[in-house]
């Protein structure tokens, strides 16, 4: 426990400095007096005795300094002194300080902003009890519903119930619907107005498993898991409570009506809890047992094959993930076997053989955002890191230049006894002050920038609910970056500056005074900057060209002039029957009749809104083994192809003749026609959905349309089939409108028309089809824009560096240039002399940067589209751009050099 003893001592040394110093002086004086007395006792004259005593003891001040060192307070003391001195120095050269702090603020701010986003998407733990013990069954990549056998990402309700009962490895198991039911419409307290709200269905065990305690009221319990339909209750989010209810303390007991069911609010979740999916924030949670009431279209509580849930479980204290995984897989096999019956089909057996449930740590929550943005964010992190490095090189060069002007000061300080280590420390303190200033500004900059970033990556009209507020981790990151930055740009200049030849430095004048190697070092820094800028520019070029190529992908539909609306028939009580079909038809007719509307259609999906994929069976044909037989299906109105502008190639589109009672029909795309009906026109051919040959003549093909992109611009050609909603009655939420003219009036018209059809029907404008397409390449856009911005910033910084170095060199060589000109060198020769120097640096930089860029390109090849990492156009454009900027930057100093008046120059100095 010795430190117990030390701490008060050191604190005393630090804060009661004067009394400690006084004591030391007293002690030394006493000692000195005794020595003098002793000497005098030996008969030495008083004056002489004193000198002898001082000789014997040594200088009191040196001893005191040594004692202070022993007390270790000097570090702190010196540091404070350095800070004071450093601040004075920084004030003395406001220009350099401003430039340095500002560029650091940009650099550190950019790093902080990207890191904040990374933190929110990839690193932050869920605000729940002991998140490290939570696991997700499967990888959470799929969402929606799957009716396959032995599926390992999505699970049915009964699977969840059985697993919960039978497992031996989890202290609790919970499940949630794999989709957020976004944009539902409900009434608060039975009022007339319908409000938009996002609903997440969760099992009764959801809150207990996570260990989330409600701020107010109670959360669900296991009891809410059954019976189905028996628990019309809801827990609401803190932010909704705040936003919608003004933190009403008597919220419990108030109600929300969705469709025909009234849900009683029983609790409010804690403020930090946003759910378990990063990038989503439901307004209310409702028990899964209410699935049929909340979402009639998504009703599969008692269907073993309606696999639509994620399962999140908490490991028992002593159980490892591997043990749990073994137990889960064993159980899953039993459960699946039980579902399928005693004899498995060949396909089922195959699925079972391949099925392996992987337990994924769920500490950071679920997120499909993470899959999309992990790589782009990592790339951007590297990009901003390089930009910061370039900024560091600039500041290092600035400091090196300033070192020359400070040489005399340094020399004087060394001459009067300052140690080199002490001086280096002092100069590093200055650097640290600059970078901390930059860091502090950077955090401000980042808090603005990270919100802008979130807006960029958001795919909906509202920004993604991501928490990018700086937390401990972000602040730690920024501090660390600031510190590393200070060391990076400060060390070399500090070491160089303090390596001075005292005698020559102290002599007046500048000509002979050179800091060893300053030139070579500064040049090396420029080469580094050029190389790094080249890497960034080439990267930016690659990403921009990929983006352009993506934007020019043939979508197969015309994305211009289409508005997309969402309708919500569920929450106003429509059942899946003829009345719903009538609603769709009425809507289409009324909206189409509005002026400016060219076509309108209800649809299950448009581009990138989701998909329904299932195999099909074709009459009289066997499976084609080379394809997995999956076809994308869509359900649409008769005006869909006109609205999307997808050309019909053969046959007809749907019309009034296709009714509930008429033969089932489908329109297929070219790829499906080619794959499933090779040779001859497929019109009149028959197929069925699923893999049961019994159904292979269910549906007749009546037309073939051109291929389109369905889920993303990068996708391959998919076979697709469309069905009329009249023959597949269900809830379809999309209403698309092709228009001409001002979209704002069209939006108003559509709303008006819809309310004339059904006054209660919620109709929300979502976005244009073009926006929908753009949003599908949000990560690509983000990375292209930001890398272009940072690439240009890097070039700009490098140019400042080149300009600074050249300008400085010209000033220093004014004398020499004067001599040359006096001896007959022409202006152009001088111009070339200066330019040549920077061209050599540029060439070196390019030579270093090019292979580095090629290597880096391979790392990002996954983010590229339609071009190779060694795309010659990107390479050449980047090199030329850099060359042009850099030559411009060095041209100015060169021009100045060529205009030197020899007479003035020779008198210079």
């Amino acid at each position, binding site marked *: 426990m010795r430190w117990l*003893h030390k701490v008060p001592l050191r604190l005393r040394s630090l804060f009661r400095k004067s009394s400690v110093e006084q004591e030391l002086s*007293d002690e030394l004086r*006493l*000692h000195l007096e005794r*020595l003098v007395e002793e000497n005098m006792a030996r008969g030495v004259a008083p004056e002489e005795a004193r000198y002898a005593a001082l000789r014997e003891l*040594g200088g009191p001040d040196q001893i005191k300094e040594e*004692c202070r*060192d022993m007390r270790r307070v000097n570090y702190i003391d010196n540091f404070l002194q350095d800070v004071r001195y450093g601040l004075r120095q920084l004030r003395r050269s406001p220009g350099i300080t401003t430039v340095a702090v500002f560029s650091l603020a940009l650099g550190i701010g950019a790093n902080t902003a990207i890191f904040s986003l990374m933190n929110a998407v990839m690193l932050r733990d869920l605000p729940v009890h002991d998140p490290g013990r939570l696991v997700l069954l499967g990888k959470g990549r799929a969402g929606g519903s799957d009716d396959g056998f032995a599926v390992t990402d999505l699970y049915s309700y009964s699977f969840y119930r059985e697993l919960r009962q039978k497992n031996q490895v989890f202290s609790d198991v919970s499940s949630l619907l794999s989709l957020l039911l976004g944009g539902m419409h409900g009434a608060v307290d039975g009022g007339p107005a319908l409000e938009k709200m996002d609903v997440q269905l969760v099992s009764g065990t959801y809150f207990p498993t996570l260990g989330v305690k409600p701020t107010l009221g109670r959360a669900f319990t296991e009891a809410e898991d059954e019976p189905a339909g028996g628990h019309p209750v809801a827990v609401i989010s803190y932010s909704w409570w705040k936003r919608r209810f003004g933190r009403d303390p008597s919220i419990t007991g108030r109600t929300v009506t969705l469709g025909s069911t009234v849900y009683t609010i029983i609790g409010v979740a804690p403020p930090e809890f946003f759910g378990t999916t990063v990038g989503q924030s439901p307004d209310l949670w409702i028990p899964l047992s209410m699935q049929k009431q909340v979402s009639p279209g998504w009703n599969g509580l008692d269907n073993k094959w309606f696999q639509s849930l994620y399962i999140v479980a908490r490991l028992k204290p002593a159980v490892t993930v591997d043990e749990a995984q073994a137990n889960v897989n064993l159980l899953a096999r039993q459960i699946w076997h039980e579902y399928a019956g005693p004899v498995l089909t060949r396909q089922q057996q195959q699925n079972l053989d391949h099925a392996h449930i992987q337990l994924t740590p769920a500490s950071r929550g679920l997120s499909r955002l993470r899959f999309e943005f992990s790589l782009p964010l990592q790339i951007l992190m590297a990009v901003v890191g390089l930009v910061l490095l370039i900024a560091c090189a600039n500041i290092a060069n600035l400091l090196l230049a300033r070192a020359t002007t400070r040489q005399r000061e340094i020399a004087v300080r060394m001459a009067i006894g300052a140690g080199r280590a002490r001086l280096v420390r002092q100069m590093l303190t200055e650097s640290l002050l600059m970078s901390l200033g930059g860091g502090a500004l950077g955090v401000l900059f980042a808090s603005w920038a990270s919100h802008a970033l979130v807006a960029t990556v958001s795919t909906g009209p509202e920004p993604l609910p991501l928490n990018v507020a700086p937390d401990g981790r972000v602040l730690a990151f920024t501090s660390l970056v600031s510190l590393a930055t200070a060391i990076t740009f400060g060390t070399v200049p500090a070491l160089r500056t303090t390596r001075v030849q005292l005698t020559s430095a102290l002599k007046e004048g500048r000509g002979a005074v050179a800091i060893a190697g300053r030139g070579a070092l500064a040049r090396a820094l420029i080469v580094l900057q050029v190389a790094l800028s080249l890497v960034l520019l080439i990267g930016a070029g690659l990403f921009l060209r990929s983006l352009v190529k993506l934007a020019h992908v043939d979508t197969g539909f015309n994305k211009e002039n289409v508005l997309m609306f969402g309708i919500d028939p569920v929450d106003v009580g429509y059942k899946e029957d003829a009345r719903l079909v009538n609603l769709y038809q009425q809507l289409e007719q009324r909206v189409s009749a509005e002026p400016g509307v060219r076509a309108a259609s209800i649809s299950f999906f448009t581009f990138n809104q989701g998909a329904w994929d299932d195999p099909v069976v074709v009459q009289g044909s066997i499976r084609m083994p080379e394809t997995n037989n999956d076809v994308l299906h869509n359900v649409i109105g008769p005006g869909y192809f006109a609205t999307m502008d997808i050309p019909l190639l053969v046959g007809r589109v749907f019309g009034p003749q296709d009714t509930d009672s008429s033969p089932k029909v489908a329109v297929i795309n070219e790829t499906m026609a080619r794959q499933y009906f090779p040779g001859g026109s497929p019109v009149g051919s028959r197929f069925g959905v699923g893999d049961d040959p019994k159904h292979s003549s269910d549906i007749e093909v009546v037309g073939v349309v051109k291929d389109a992109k369905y889920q993303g611009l990068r996708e391959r050609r998919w076979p697709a089939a469309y069905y009329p909603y009249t023959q597949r009655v269900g809830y379809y939420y999309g209403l698309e409108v092709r228009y001409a003219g001002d979209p704002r009036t069209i939006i108003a018209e559509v709303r008006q028309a819809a309310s004339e059809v059904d006054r209660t029907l919620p109709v929300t404008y979502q976005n244009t089809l073009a926006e929908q397409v753009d949003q599908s390449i949000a990560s690509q856009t983000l990375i292209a824009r930001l890398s272009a911005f940072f690439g240009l910033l890097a070039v700009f910084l490098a140019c400042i560096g080149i300009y600074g170095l050249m300008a400085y060199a010209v000033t220093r060589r004014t004398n020499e240039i004067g001599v040359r000109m006096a001896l007959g060198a022409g202006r152009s020769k001088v111009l070339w002399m200066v330019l040549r120097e920077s061209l050599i640096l540029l060439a070196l930089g390019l030579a270093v940067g090019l292979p580095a860029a090629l290597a880096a390109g391979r790392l990002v090849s996954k983010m590229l589209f339609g071009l190779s990492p060694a795309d010659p156009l990107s390479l050449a454009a980047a090199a030329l751009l850099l060359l042009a900027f850099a030559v411009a930057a060095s041209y100015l100093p060169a021009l100045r050099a060529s205009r030197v008046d020899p007479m003035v120059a020779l008198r210079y100095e």
Partner: protein
Amino acid sequence: MGKPTDLVQGTLDLLILKTLALEPMHGWGIAQRIRQMSNEVLQVNQGALYPALHRLEQSGWIKAKWGESDNNRRAKYYSLTAAGRKYLEREQANWQRLSAAIGLVLETS
């Protein structure tokens, strides 16, 4: 007897601790005592004494208190802490082992 021998590096701490093991003492007294005890052979570099005292205090081996000196002058008295006493024992044992070993080497050759 030639010049008083300089202290071997690091032994000053040991000597101070040993001196203080007898009784609490001020800086001047410690220097005098070391000289006396070593029969004037060991000459403490008086300038080095005080930093050493500060170091030992920082390490927690000794503690300091102000008191009256023999001729009514205020002086800072140092005394051994319990930890210091243990440290001294340990170091003393080490020293003895070391010197014995060196002695052995010198005698045998």
